[in-house]
């Protein structure tokens, strides 16, 4: 689970050696790719591009960054972030994040997307950093507005051991949301009608850095509280390699829990990216874990429809219907559809039984199957309609 308002810039040295904010201007450009599997959606490949500028003075810093993610099914997401940090005293630091995520190539404020704000207060006590954070966000999806907010408390311990820097973090978060789509997709449900889902999270993360290498891993556990039932967990592994002073390679993988503040669904992902820093500041770098978040892709892909004999995946302009007809191995199974002018196609028996895949264009289609020359019927799992010839056909709508 990504902590609320995670620090934008990760100091290369222990916090106690650098109590105030670094100074200078840092700029970065990211380009990479990821494979994302959101619940109830097809596996998607996505390309990401992003960049940002950070400027720090002794007691404050400000950063602006943006990222665009384009998936192979033409879905796009854009994320815009404005971040500020204040360090009014040696041991205090305040971070404030304003985040806007939009679906499609749209500017912040468009109807589909999310807006959130999060603040984090840190107290630096030698190698130990204590932090508390809070965030609130609104997500507009499927003509529905949802809201979420969260509070988190945690601590980090950072130690230099030999030539390595180690950091161990532990945090807890309580969050609330009425985003039932996000929750259902995560396997979280309500036992009775209440205003919001309540979630308790615990996260632990461990990071190691030495020379040009950095590794980090985290584990998160989520459990419903009160009327909210269900458990889930996530993990992430990140590795980065400083190829040159200006070039960083990053790789990430894991399963992230749904972010109720930003309206980002739970998803498994693997990705890699290159970061170029045209402007650098001695001693600081953009945290590797923060590269463009492909998970924020719109879940606008129509959820998979699964039935006894069908798996239907759809997106704008294309539908893929995988049929798996239950019949004896020596049976004669035929499939016919309106998309192929009702030309019956005999389905071969393979290792997975009688399977056949249809690719359908946008529109409404009808599909029928029959076994051993019997009556034509709808594949089980599709809506059945009267074919006006004494049989049935399955109805498929492709957006």
């Amino acid at each position, binding site marked *: 689970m990504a902590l609320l308002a995670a620090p934008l810039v990760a100091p290369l040295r222990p916090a106690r050696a650098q109590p105030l904010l670094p100074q200078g201007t840092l700029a970065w450009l990211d380009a990479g790719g990821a494979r994302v599997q959101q619940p109830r959606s097809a596996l998607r490949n996505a390309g990401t591009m992003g960049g940002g500028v950070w400027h720090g003075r002794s007691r404050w810093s400000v950063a602006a960054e943006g990222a665009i993610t384009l998936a192979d099914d033409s879905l796009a997401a854009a994320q815009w972030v404005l971040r500020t940090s204040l360090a009014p005293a040696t041991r205090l630091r305040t971070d404030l994040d304003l985040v806007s995520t939009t679906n499609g190539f749209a500017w912040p404020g468009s109807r589909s997307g999310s807006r959130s704000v999060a603040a984090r207060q840190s107290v630096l006590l030698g190698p130990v950093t204590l932090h508390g954070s809070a965030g609130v966000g609104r997500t507009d999806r499927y003509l529905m507005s949802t809201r979420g907010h969260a509070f988190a408390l945690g601590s980090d311990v950072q130690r230099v051991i030999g030539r390595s820097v180690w950091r161990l973090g532990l945090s807890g978060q309580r969050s609330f949301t009425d985003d039932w789509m996000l929750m259902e997709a995560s396997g979280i*449900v309500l036992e009775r009608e209440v205003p919001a889902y309540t979630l308790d999270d615990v996260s632990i993360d461990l990071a190691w850095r030495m020379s040009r290498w950095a590794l980090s891993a985290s584990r998160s556990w989520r459990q419903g509280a009160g009327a909210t039932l269900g458990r889930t967990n996530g993990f992430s592994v990140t590795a980065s390699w400083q190829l040159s002073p200006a070039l960083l390679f990053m790789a990430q993988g894991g399963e992230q829990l749904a972010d109720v503040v930003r309206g980002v669904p739970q998803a498994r992902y693997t990705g890699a990216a290159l970061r170029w820093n045209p402007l650098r500041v001695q001693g600081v770098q953009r945290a590797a874990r923060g590269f463009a978040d492909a998970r924020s892709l719109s879940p606008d892909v129509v959820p998979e429809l699964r039935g006894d004999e069908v798996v239907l995946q759809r997106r704008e302009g294309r539908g893929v219907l995988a049929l798996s007809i239950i019949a004896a191995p020596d049976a004669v199974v035929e499939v016919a559809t*309106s998309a192929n002018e009702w030309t019956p196609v005999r389905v071969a028996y393979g290792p997975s039984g009688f399977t056949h895949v249809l690719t359908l264009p946008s529109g409404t289609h009808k599909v029928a199957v029959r076994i051993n020359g019997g009556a034509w019927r709808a594949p089980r799992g599709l809506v059945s309609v009267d074919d006006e*010839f*004494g049989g049935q056909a399955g109805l498929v709508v492709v957006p």
Partner: protein
Amino acid sequence: MPTLTLRRAGLVLCSGFALAVQPFTSPMVSAQDATPFDAIGDDNARTALRTIIADAAARGLPTAPLVTKVREGLAKKATPERIRTATSALADRLALAASALAPARSNDELAAAADALQAGIPVSTLRDMRKLWPGKPLTVPLGVLAEMVQSGVSKTVATRRVRELLVKGATGGQFANLGTDVRNDIASGLAPDAAMELRSKGVMSLLNSQAAGLSNGLVPANVPPRPRNK
């Protein structure tokens, strides 16, 4: 552009010979004739089908769905009379749909509207939907509406909810999404109307007794529990 082709074919047919005598003089109709009609052994049925299709072309209706219907009947080994009856009924539905969706209409849209009419959606609903979306294709909303009604959602509830989504400017993907969610809910045991109301309103799910056991263990992320009514 198919519409132009059809109109041109219609002009040819209207200004040519009597439709019932030589309807296949149109190059387009002749091309469509080639495959399906030869397979119909009954001369009277074959002539009747050609007349139905030529008449549809003359009225500016898309003939492709009609030819597809004939092919469907042939593939399903239906009797010639049954094929004629089904094709004629489809032609009537296409004509009603064309009238209701005028002036803007695409072939896919008309075919979806004909399916909606077959599902029992009244013509007045099609007119209303066209008024709400005068410039955008109604293919997917009509398809989802028919799908919902065929799934058991009452026409009143399905029509009202689809209409609300049209007013709000939902995308085709969102309509399809709604359809999938409603059908999954119905498959899980929720009453069709309740599923439609829940999903289209976006209200939170309620848990059934089956889901109560989920708190004791992990739930696969890709198989979310579904709400049920009791």
